[in-house]
């Protein structure tokens, strides 16, 4: 049985967009979304809200196999053109995400063409785990993420030399989200 999307699309999508904008400008800060969304399993409400807000008929989306159970819902409500992993502007992953280097990186002339990975994780907590630094962060910010690939930090560091090319990440867990724009550097701590 198909579940509905946003109840009131304009204010809800705008609210979610605002939260993502804040999350991108203050990397690692955890935001809690205030949406009443009946998300289709296995999508968390935040993941579903981010998809409804960002993906539409004019964007391309690659669904990793772990999200297949919500495929019909995503196709119906977002209407995004399906695309291969290296071509998609958005990639949705619910478990172990694909290697960041396999996603679209953008070019020197058009770094904005780099993909955004929407990654659902087990939990997001502000606290010890990672030490983030970069634009939008005064000194350091701490974030703990559970449910990412074991070598995530190596992958993240590996895309740094190609800057401004690279991938941005929106992390979702339950109703929470946090963002890792490619400008941020991450160390353990």
């Amino acid at each position: 049985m198909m579940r509905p999307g946003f109840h009131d699309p304009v204010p809800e999508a705008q609210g979610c967009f605002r939260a993502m904008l804040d999350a991108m400008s203050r990397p690692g800060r955890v935001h809690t979304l205030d949406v009443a969304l009946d998300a289709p399993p296995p999508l968390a409400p935040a993941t579903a809200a981010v998809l409804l807000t960002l993906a539409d008929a004019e964007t391309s989306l690659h669904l990793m196999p772990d999200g297949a159970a919500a495929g019909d819902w995503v196709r119906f409500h977002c209407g995004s053109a399906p695309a291969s992993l290296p071509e998609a502007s958005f990639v949705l992953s619910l478990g172990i995400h694909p290697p960041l280097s396999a996603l679209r990186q953008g070019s020197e002339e058009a770094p904005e063409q780099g993909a955004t990975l929407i990654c659902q994780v087990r939990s997001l907590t502000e606290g010890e785990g990672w030490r983030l630094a970069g634009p939008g962060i005064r000194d350091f910010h701490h974030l703990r993420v559970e449910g990412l690939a074991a070598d995530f930090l190596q992958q993240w560091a590996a895309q740094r030399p190609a800057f401004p090319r690279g991938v941005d990440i929106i992390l979702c867990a339950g109703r929470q989200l946090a963002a890792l724009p490619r400008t941020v550097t991450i160390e353990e701590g």
Partner: protein
Amino acid sequence: MSFSVSERQRWMAVLARASLDELRTCLDAASPLPPHRRLRGPETGLIMLRGQAAAVGDRFNLAEITVTRCAVSLEGGTVGHAYLSGRDAARAELAAILDALLQDDATKPAWMAAVIEPLAAIQAENEARQRRKAAATKVQFMTMATTR
């Protein structure tokens, strides 16, 4: 559910061409609509219209058109869809409900008779009237020999 894609295309086209007033007139005389759940919309957006160079050649983008779409589900789980040109949300929602009812064998005959066939008859007559008006402006050439 026994209907072909072409049958469904026909009733969706008839609903797309009908005005809200025409639709309501048919519905007023029919049994009340069952409850439904909105899955998406009604919401208004755009579709890009296309033409072809010299009508048969390369495609080009002509202009956009406003379109209102709606998807609903009925109690049994049948999902009805509507995409209609224009911005009339009420019309799109009614068309989506009817699309769902017409997919169900139990309800299809009654709704075909109450809504689709009467609307199709009105539309056929409108088109025929346009053809008759156009025919009245058809130029009948006479050769100079007959008028001399």
